[in-house]
């Protein structure tokens, strides 16, 4: 999808006589360069995404974490751990949080110089045994193994809030 868009723009640009190097589109549109400097982490790199709790949206969250890694220069190992843990967390929301209807997943990402913090929240049924749990229940232990810190507590409006941090030192 992204490549399709990127591939198409230089065709327009070429007709206008512009140089068609890979960074051309971003510069023409005034976007900032994508150099890899971890120093760009901080509050200016925070974002929050609220999406329907659909299985297909888990992939979007994974892609956005890749995007954080690519843009800010987060080490690959940190991105991989975060992707796996966040996949587990979001899948839990999709499978268990909203048994009686639709709902949302709220994802907050806070890249910092020392850590990558990700918070996954929902407004679903909250903690407790799930009637449709048939798996081995490895989700939270896996998240705990991958993240440096994990905090699971009830959300402000019901549901759960799972906060995870991943140390940037992991290569």
């Amino acid at each position: 999808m992204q490549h399709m868009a990127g591939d198409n723009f230089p065709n327009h640009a070429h007709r206008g006589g512009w140089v068609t190097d890979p960074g051309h589109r971003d510069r023409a549109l005034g976007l900032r360069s994508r150099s890899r400097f971890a120093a760009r982490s901080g509050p200016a790199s925070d974002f929050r995404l609220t999406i329907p709790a659909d299985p297909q949206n888990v992939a979007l969250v994974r892609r956005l974490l890749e995007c954080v890694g690519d843009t800010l220069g987060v080490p690959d190992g940190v991105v991989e751990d975060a992707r796996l843990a966040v996949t587990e967390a979001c899948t839990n929301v999709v499978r268990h949080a909203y048994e009686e209807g639709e709902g949302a997943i709220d994802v907050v990402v806070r890249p910092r110089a020392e850590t990558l913090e990700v918070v996954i929240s929902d407004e679903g049924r909250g903690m407790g045994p799930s009637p449709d749990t048939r798996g081995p229940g490895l989700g939270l232990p896996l998240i705990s193994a991958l993240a440096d810190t994990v905090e699971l507590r009830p959300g402000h409006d019901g549901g759960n809030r799972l906060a995870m941090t991943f140390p940037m030192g992991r290569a």
Partner: protein
Amino acid sequence: MSGGTAPTRVSIASGPLVGPVLRRVVGMVAARADLPLDRLDDAVLIADLIAARAPAHVAAETVDVELGSTPRTLNLRVGPLREGGGRALVVDAAVPGVGNVVEQLTDELSVETVDGEEYLCLRLAYDGAG
């Protein structure tokens, strides 16, 4: 397992991630709206322009976009923006040699004010869609 039709919302601090994050979110929602390839490309280009221009016009320090879709139609609502920011954002989206890309690529473009806050609303549709 649940499904959902709640809108997708993204709030990105005005910084290096505005473009990369918004581009991916818009691209994915547009793809799920079953927009044909050329309109999907248009949607991503508009996302890039919003990412580039909106930080100068937002009311706070984040670029906020709400995304909704129906078959072959994508709706974007950008804001809250500063007073006059909706129109200014569109004007700023002119690309040298191309013209105003946002105006050219959207099917509907409007500025609405809700509770004193200004929003830029954009609609992209496939020509065959109603």
